[in-house]
């Protein structure tokens, strides 16, 4: 066969070699960062130019120069930092509590199919309520302080974690469990050694969504009633038509979310070393 094929295969070989793409000089971490920063700079420059030329209303839209001035001022006064910490603290606390309780409850449902089937419609029902609509009641119940924001963040994150954990536990490889049973393992051993580890990727995958929900809970709680935090700052500034401060608040939230996302990314990579073999490798198409 190889003799017959050799002629065509030799001709074919030349094709992939020619078409093998040379990586562009910008296709490196540094190159991409340069392009990304360039994009941001152009965006702000256009915005600023638009304001100066009179196409964009500085009153309704703010202006980059105004935003940077406000940013600088709020940093110096320490307000921005303290507001950020406050919101971050609420979000992370809500995220941790919600994720832990949600995941544990979801995993625990693996133990009893009966209980799981019993509570499933309730979970679906509760999950279908937009949790943000609870915000006014949560503030009534838990006051205007830290607890109400954390509670709101918990209500947003817990069900996401619960459903993901429950689903993952249900989907855990039956054969791995069978193998353990044949070895004489009891239900707890099967749970801890076969079920829990196999759910970890799904549970950790919810961290990404839930860290965002934690921030949503904290900020919405602050909108409704609060003396501190980025949500409070944005709400107050917008009622005073101080658009520059609003943008500072929004951009700070963006940065927080951005940093948290990468923190989660690191957690994901370090806590699941066995997954690395595939996730770091991508098939080149």
């Amino acid at each position, binding site marked *: 066969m190889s003799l017959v094929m050799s002629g065509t295969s030799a001709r074919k070989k030349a094709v992939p070699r020619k078409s093998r793409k040379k990586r562009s000089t910008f296709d490196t971490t540094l190159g991409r960062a340069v392009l990304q920063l360039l994009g941001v700079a152009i965006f702000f420059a256009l915005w600023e130019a638009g304001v100066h030329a009179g196409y964009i209303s500085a009153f309704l839209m703010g202006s980059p120069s105004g935003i940077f001035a406000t940013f600088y001022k709020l940093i110096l006064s320490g307000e921005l930092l303290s507001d950020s910490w406050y919101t971050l603290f609420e979000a992370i606390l809500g995220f941790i509590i919600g994720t832990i309780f949600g995941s544990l409850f979801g995993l625990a449902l693996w133990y009893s199919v009966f209980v799981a089937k019993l509570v499933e419609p309730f979970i679906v029902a509760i999950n279908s309520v937009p949790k943000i609509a609870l915000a006014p009641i949560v503030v009534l119940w838990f006051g205007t302080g830290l607890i109400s924001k954390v509670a709101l963040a918990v209500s947003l994150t817990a069900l996401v974690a619960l459903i993901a954990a429950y689903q993952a536990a249900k989907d855990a490889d039956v*054969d791995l469990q*069978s*193998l353990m*049973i*044949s*070895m004489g393992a009891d239900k707890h051993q099967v749970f801890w*050694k076969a079920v829990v580890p196999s759910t970890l990727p799904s549970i950790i995958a919810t961290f990404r969504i839930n860290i965002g929900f934690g921030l949503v809970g904290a900020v919405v709680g602050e909108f409704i009633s609060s003396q501190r935090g980025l949500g409070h700052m944005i709400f107050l500034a917008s009622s005073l038509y101080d658009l520059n401060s609003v943008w500072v608040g929004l951009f700070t939230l963006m940065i927080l979310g951005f940093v948290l996302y990468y923190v989660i990314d690191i957690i994901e990579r370090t806590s699941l070393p066995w997954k690395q073999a595939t996730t770091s490798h991508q098939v080149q198409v």
Partner: protein
Amino acid sequence: MPPKQIQLTVQNISKSFAGKGGDVNVLDDLSFTINERDFVSIIGPSGCGKTTIFNIIAGLLEPDGGTITYRGKEIESLRGRVGYMMQKDLLFPWRTVMGNVLLGLETRGVDQKEAEEKAREYLKQFGLAGFENAYPKTLSGGMRQRVALIRTLIMDPDILLLDEPFSALDYQTRLYLEGVLKDAVQTYNKTVILVTHDIDEAVALSKRVVVLSGRPARVKVVHEIDIEATSPITARNDVKFSTYFKTLCAELDIQTETTS
């Protein structure tokens, strides 16, 4: 030769599964015996219920009827006392080679240090020294099967249930692992029940071959394989090998003709 002692008796086992069009009778009145230190291969058409038998012996499924007798005592199942190597190589992806090998000893509550020492010995013997901390994903198919085999052997089970352990491997690796298995079984004095589709493998490894009929599975014939060979490769050169091979082929051919 001392008289053969019976270790395991499976008697009149029946099992049916609820299927779409009514119950599927998978096992019906199935009986066979396994001697001490036996090496029995079970061959039969695909879907005839071989894995189901293993699941029943291992205590993963309850039979609808029938009894299992072990060394004279009637028992529910051999759960906790068998080494079950399932049809697909079932390594825990989040555990390293070492972690996988230790799984059974852990569930049994064996001292960690003692267990690890034992594991290292086995890994060395099976040519896996140095791979203790590798994840299954990074191993070749043959290496994964060796890890699964160690995991099964290290528990020192009374009986090994091997469900097509080498079917996913290439011929060379299979020959090599057959040798590894045969050696291990001899060193550790194990009883083995092997399910395989490979008649060649069944003849080369076993003392007896049980031929099952199509669903519902019944024992059609049991062939004693009288080949005194030290390795599965030399067994294949034995003068009687091809006779056994042809006989078994014929048995299976007749099966497929009448049942299909």
